[in-house]
């Protein structure tokens, strides 16, 4: 029965995803994503923010399929730059540089790229099935959630985001509070009072998600990238001999499997996602290896594992977003933004009310992964040539696209002023070594939490104990408390620091 409905659902999904239109949007997303992934300094979040206004003109399923394509396309593209130029196009491919670039220097760029692509494809396939299997039961569970449970789940999500954020825990915590506070700016829907608007009319509807993201991720990135003198050691634009040897393949099998599993699990956690997955997969491989000393000198395991892991995580991070309507990271926040533009409220009801959209998106991920493996390897020459565009020009183009993209949202020049403001804020936060991702999660979850908190309090007639009386809610809160307690223990902190310092 379960298996039959799984096939039924996937068949429905594929019937939606293989329509000519959706195939086209999937391809567009994958291509744009790869291009973005290749270019250093332009992340998937900023790109998705940039293209969000454009998706307004597409049908809902096409828009989401394209946005998803950008995300996993960027994972693929990022690895190409890491291997060939020693410059991670994406944060999640930083570790790929370690061994990938060394392989390229030894003239084995081809096998490194091929293993990265094959590993990613395998991980993508597994993760797609994982989503299809996990989504229905999780959705059923979510439908039984009371407001108190939702509230506590979000607390847990934010705690995860703190624990899994890179760098200082205190800073991550502060960024979440800051984000939540920013999220409250505007009119309070329950009472009609305005909060923190300074009488500025444009703020009555709250701070726009797109201007915030584009400022903090787009403009601030440009500022910081222009500071760092550019150094690109492009090895060669010609990659010869793509085929990995039998030995390469044999050595990669286990790392790919482990990377996929680890990435798939970590991807589901809020605040986790692709970056954490690739870092941990690399660390695990190094620990398990009988020859840890070859890591960093061109070990193919060091490419296979993190590349599989980041792609698996990129995909499974859709699970909480699709089933619970909770963004687990900044990219998923963009996906939710995309859904809202089309009037879809993310949450457990999406699967029942719009099964075509839901399953179509999942099926399109598999198709997109297939497209990427076909697209990426033969087109590597073109991607590499894109790297020859110097950043001094690229930065101007990115800036222009940010400006016009935000302007086009509401044809409002004032929103462009906001990205200038948030750009400076973003740069300041970067200087203070504060990760912007927790800020974004707080920004999105803050207002949602307020809504659920109010509902829960109303239902319980003002008794705050409701959060401890419902078993689910209690379980979430206890887990959150344990996690926080755990992270304060010195041992765990040490492990965490090692995991991120690799």
């Amino acid at each position: 029965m379960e298996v039959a409905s799984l096939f039924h659902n996937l068949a429905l999904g594929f019937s939606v995803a293989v329509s000519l239109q959706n195939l086209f949007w999937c391809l567009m997303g994958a291509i744009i994503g790869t291009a973005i992934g290749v270019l250093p300094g332009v992340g998937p979040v900023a790109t998705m923010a940039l293209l969000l206004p454009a998706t307004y003109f597409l049908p809902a399923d096409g828009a989401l399929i394209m946005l998803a394509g950008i995300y996993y396309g960027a994972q693929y593209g990022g690895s190409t730059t890491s291997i060939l130029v020693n410059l991670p196009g994406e944060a999640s491919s930083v570790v790929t540089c370690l061994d990938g670039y060394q392989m390229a220097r030894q003239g084995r760029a081809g096998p490194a790229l091929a293993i990265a692509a094959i590993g990613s494809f395998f991980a993508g396939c597994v993760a797609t099935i994982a989503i299809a299997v996990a989504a229905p039961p999780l959705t059923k569970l979510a439908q039984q959630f009371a407001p108190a449970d939702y509230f506590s789940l979000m607390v847990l999500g934010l705690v995860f985001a703190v624990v899994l954020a890179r760098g200082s825990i205190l800073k991550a915590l502060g960024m979440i509070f800051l984000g939540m506070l920013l999220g409250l700016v505007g009119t309070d829907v329950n009472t009609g009072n305005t909060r923190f608007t300074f009488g500025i009319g444009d703020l009555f509807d709250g701070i726009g998600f797109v201007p915030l993201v584009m400022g903090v991720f787009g403009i601030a990135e440009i500022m910081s990238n222009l500071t760092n003198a550019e150094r690109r050691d492009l090895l060669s634009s010609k990659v010869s001999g793509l085929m990995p040897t039998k030995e390469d393949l044999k050595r990669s099998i286990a790392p790919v499997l482990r990377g996929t599993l680890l990435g798939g699990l970590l991807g589901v956690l809020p605040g986790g996602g692709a970056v954490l997955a690739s870092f941990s997969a690399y660390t695990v491989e190094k620990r398990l290896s009988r020859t840890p000393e070859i890591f960093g000198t061109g070990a193919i395991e060091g490419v296979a594992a993190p590349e599989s892991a980041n792609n698996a995580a990129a995909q499974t991070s859709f699970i909480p977003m699709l089933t619970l309507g909770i963004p687990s990271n900044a990219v998923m926040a963009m996906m939710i933004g995309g859904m809202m533009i089309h009037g879809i409220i993310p949450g457990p009801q999406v699967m029942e009310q719009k099964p075509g959209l839901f399953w179509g998106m999942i099926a399109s991920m598999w198709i997109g992964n297939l497209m990427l493996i076909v697209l990426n390897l033969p087109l590597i020459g073109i991607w590499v040539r894109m790297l020859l565009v110097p950043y001094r020009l690229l930065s101007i183009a990115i800036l222009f696209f940010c400006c016009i993209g935000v302007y086009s949202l509401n044809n409002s020049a004032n929103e462009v002023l906001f990205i200038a403001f948030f750009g400076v804020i973003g740069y300041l936060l970067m200087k203070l070594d504060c990760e912007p991702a927790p800020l974004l999660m707080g920004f999105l979850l803050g207002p949602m939490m307020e809504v659920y908190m109010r509902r829960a309090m109303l239902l319980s007639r003002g008794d705050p104990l409701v959060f401890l009386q419902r078993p689910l809610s209690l379980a979430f809160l206890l887990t959150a408390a344990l996690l926080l307690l755990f992270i304060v223990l010195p041992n765990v902190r040490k492990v965490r620091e090692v995991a991120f310092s690799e």
Partner: protein
Amino acid sequence: MRIKSGQDLATGLLFALVGAGGLWLGSDYPMGTAQRPGTGVLPYILSWCLIATGGLLWLKATLVEGPPMTSWAWRPVIMITLATVAFALLVDPYGLAVSMLVSMTLAALGTPETRWVEYALFAAIMLVLGIAMFIWGLGMPIQVLPKELSWR
């Protein structure tokens, strides 16, 4: 008391300041009742959380060795900000062409690496592409040229 990490200190100060600002601005938001929490509840809680986090960071800055504040790269920060602001202020009254040119030139001034001949060529291409894509292609309601010069 010696400051061991300028960065932590500055971050703590920022958090605490925003928190204090939130308390001050939110001081007259209604708190409502327990059954119907009002507008002011969450801002109040969050502001105190921010102040507490800032305080802890401050404490940490005096106890634990950490990174110092690094200097700002003023040139790109100022020029990129100006470029963005220029686009915002010029696009409605003077059209896309003028705002693009001014904004791109300001951005180009943001780095000493700019080569001006190359930039001129690039700017021309961007101008044509931008107008073709966004005004003729997507039909965005922006003028190309200032009203006085526009033939439309």
